[in-house]
C-alpha cells in the first residue's frame, strides 16, 4: 500500500510537470496549427537561464525568475518572427522540419555556453521531505504541483474571459474570419509563442530545482507527444488530464513491472490512441471522408 501511494504521488507530480510542458505545446498548436518539436529545448533554455542568473550571477531567485521569463518572451517572439512567420502557408513537413532545425540550433547554443555536463542546482524552492499521510514527498515537488495547478487555472480563465484569450481562440478556429473581425493574427501568433516559451521556462525552472540542469532535460520535448495526443492536440484540459494519466501510468509501470518498460509505455499508448481515437480525449475532430 505504501508503494502504491508513493508511486501515485510521484506519478502525479511528474504528470503535472509534463502537463505544463504540454500546455506550451497546445497553446502554439491552438493558435497557429504549428507543431513545435522544439518545446523540450524551450524548457532546456529556461532551466539554463535560471541556473545562470541564480548560480553564475548570484541574483536572488525572484529577480532571476523575472529575468528568465523576460528572456523567454523575447525568445518566443524572435522564433515566431524569424522562423515561423516566413513559413506561413508552407506544407506541414516544412514546418515540422523548421522546428526540428530550431531545436538543434537551441541545443547547440546551450552546449556552447554551458557545456554538456549535467550540473546540480542549489534549490531555490525548499526541498525538505514532507510527510503526506503514509507517503513522503519533497517539498519542491509539492511546490511544482501548486504552481502547475495555478498556471493551468490561470490559462483556463484567460481563454474564457480575457480579450486576448478569446482572440487567440478565434484565430485558432478560423484565421480569415478572425482577421476580418479585426483581430491581428500576427500579433496573436507572437503572443502564443511568447506565452508558450514562458510556460516552458517555468516548467524548466521547476525541473532544474528538482533534478538539476543538463542537456537531457530536452528529452521532455518528445515525452510531450503522448500527453498531447492522449488529451487532444488543441485542448488545455486535455493537456492536464493527459499529463496526469501518462505520469501515473509511467510511475506504476516503472514501479510494478520494471524492465525499463516505463521508458516506452507512453509511446505504446500513443500508437494505440492514434489507431482508436486519433483526436484524443478532448481534441476537436476534423472528419474528412471520401
Amino acid at each position, binding site marked *: 500500500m505504501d508503494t502504491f501511494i508513493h508511486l501515485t504521488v510521484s506519478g502525479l507530480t511528474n504528470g503535472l510537470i509534463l502537463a505544463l510542458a504540454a500546455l506550451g505545446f497546445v497553446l502554439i498548436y491552438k493558435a497557429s496549427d504549428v*507543431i513545435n518539436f522544439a518545446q523540450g529545448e524551450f524548457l532546456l533554455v529556461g532551466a539554463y537561464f535560471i541556473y545562470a542568473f541564480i548560480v553564475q550571477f548570484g541574483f536572488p531567485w525572484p529577480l532571476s525568475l523575472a529575468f528568465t521569463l523576460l528572456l523567454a518572451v523575447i525568445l518566443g517572439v524572435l522564433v515566431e518572427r524569424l*522562423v515561423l512567420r*516566413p*513559413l506561413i502557408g*508552407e506544407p*506541414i*513537413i*516544412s514546418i*515540422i*522540419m*523548421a522546428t*526540428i*532545425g*530550431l*531545436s*538543434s*540550433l*537551441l*541545443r*547547440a*547554443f546551450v*552546449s*556552447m555556453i554551458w557545456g554538456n555536463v549535467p550540473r546540480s542546482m542549489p534549490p531555490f524552492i525548499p526541498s525538505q521531505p514532507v510527510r503526506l499521510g503514509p507517503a513522503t514527498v519533497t517539498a519542491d515537488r509539492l511546490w511544482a504541483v501548486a504552481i502547475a495547478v495555478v498556471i493551468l487555472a490561470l490559462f483556463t480563465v484567460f481563454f474564457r474571459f480575457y480579450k486576448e484569450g478569446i482572440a487567440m481562440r478565434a484565430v485558432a478556429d478560423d484565421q480569415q474570419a478572425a482577421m476580418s473581425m479585426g483581430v491581428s493574427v500576427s500579433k496573436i501568433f507572437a503572443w502564443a509563442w511568447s506565452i508558450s516559451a514562458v510556460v516552458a521556462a517555468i516548467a524548466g525552472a521547476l525541473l532544474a530545482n528538482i533534478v538539476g540542469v543538463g542537456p537531457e532535460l530536452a528529452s521532455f520535448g*518528445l515525452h510531450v*507527444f*503522448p500527453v498531447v*495526443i492522449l488529451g487532444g492536440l488543441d485542448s488545455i484540459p486535455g493537456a492536464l488530464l493527459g499529463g496526469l494519466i501518462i505520469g501515473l501510468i509511467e510511475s506504476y509501470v516503472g514501479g510494478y513491472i520494471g*524492465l*525499463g518498460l516505463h*521508458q*516506452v509505455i507512453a*509511446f*505504446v499508448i*500513443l*500508437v494505440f490512441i*492514434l*489507431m482508436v481515437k*486519433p483526436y484524443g480525449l478532448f481534441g476537436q475532430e476534423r472528419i*474528412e471522408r*471520401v
Partner: protein
Amino acid sequence: MDSGVFFTTYQADMALRRTPLQKLRLALFILFVLVFPFIGNNYGVFLMNQIGIATIGALGLNLLVGYTGQISLGQGAFLAVGAYTAGVLVTKLGVPWYVTLLIAPLFTAFVGAVFGIPSLRLKGLYLAIATLAAQEIIIWIVTHWDSVTGGVHALVVPPPMLFGVPINRDRYFYWLIWGTVGFTALTIANLLRTHYGRAFVAIRDHDIAAEIMGIDIFKYKVLAFALSSFYVGLAGALIAHWRSIVTWERFTIDVSIVYLAMIIIGGLGSISGSLFGAAFMTLLPAVINNVGMAFKDVFPRLEEWIPYLQQALFGLIIILFLIVEPRGLHKFWQDLKNYFKLWPFSY
C-alpha cells in the same frame, strides 16, 4: 537555338535520360564513381562509402516522403531493423552475408508495412507522430531484447567473404555500396514510371482526388511504406556489413532527422536530389571538422566546440533552406541548367 525539347517517338519521350546532355552528365558521373577508388585517398573513399549508404537510405525515404507525401520520423529505426536483421542472421544463424542483403530488406519492408497501417486513418502531423512512436518502440525493443540483439552492447559482425577473400577494406566495400546505389536509383526511377509510381504521386498531390480516380489509397500507402523500408533495410544491412559493429546509438531519432534533412535539402521528390542531399549532409560535418581542426591553434576553444558547431549549422541550414529555397539543391541545379541553356540570352 533550342526553344524546347521535342520528341518524335514514344520511346524517346519515356526514356529515363532524354537529351544528349543528360546522357553525357550521367556518363561523366558514372565515370567519376568508377575512377574514384583509384585516385582518391583512404579518407575520400571512406566518405564516398558513407555518401553511398546515405544515398540509398535517402532514396528510400524520398519514395515515401517526397513521392507519396507520408511523413516518416522512423527512418533511424528502420535502418536499425535492417542492420540488426543482417547482423543477427550472420552471427547467430550463420546465413551467408549476400543472402542477408535480401532477407534483411524484406523483413524491414514487413516491419515498415506494419507501422504503415496507421496511415489508413492518419495523415500529416498525426502520421509523423505515429512514426515517431515507431522509432521509440523499435529502438526500445532493440536495446532490451538482449538474447537476440545483444541489448545495449554492440553486435560484432564478421567481415563478408567473397571467394575466400574477406571484404574488410573500404576500397573493396566501395564497389558493393555504389553498385547497390546504382541498383536502387535504377529501380526507383523505373518504379516511378509504372502505374504504382503514378499512384504514389497522385496520393501525395491530393488523396481524396486520388481515391475518386480509383486508387486504393490504403493499399498504395502501405505499399509505399513497405517499398521505402525495403531500401532503408538494404542501407541498414550494408551498414552492418561495412562497419562490422552494430550498436543502437547509430539509429536514434537524430538519424531519422538527418535523413529527413537530406531529402529536404536535396529536394523532395527527386532522385538526383537524394544524392545531392546525402552528399551535402555527409560532407557538412566532415568539412566543419576539418576546418575546425585547421584553425584550432588560432582559436584554442574551437576544438571542443566542433560538435556543437556541427549541430548549430545543421539546424541553421535546415531553417535557411526551408525559408529561402524549399525545393532544395535540386532546384538550384535546375535553375543553373536553365540559365546556361539559353545563355547569354537568359530572357
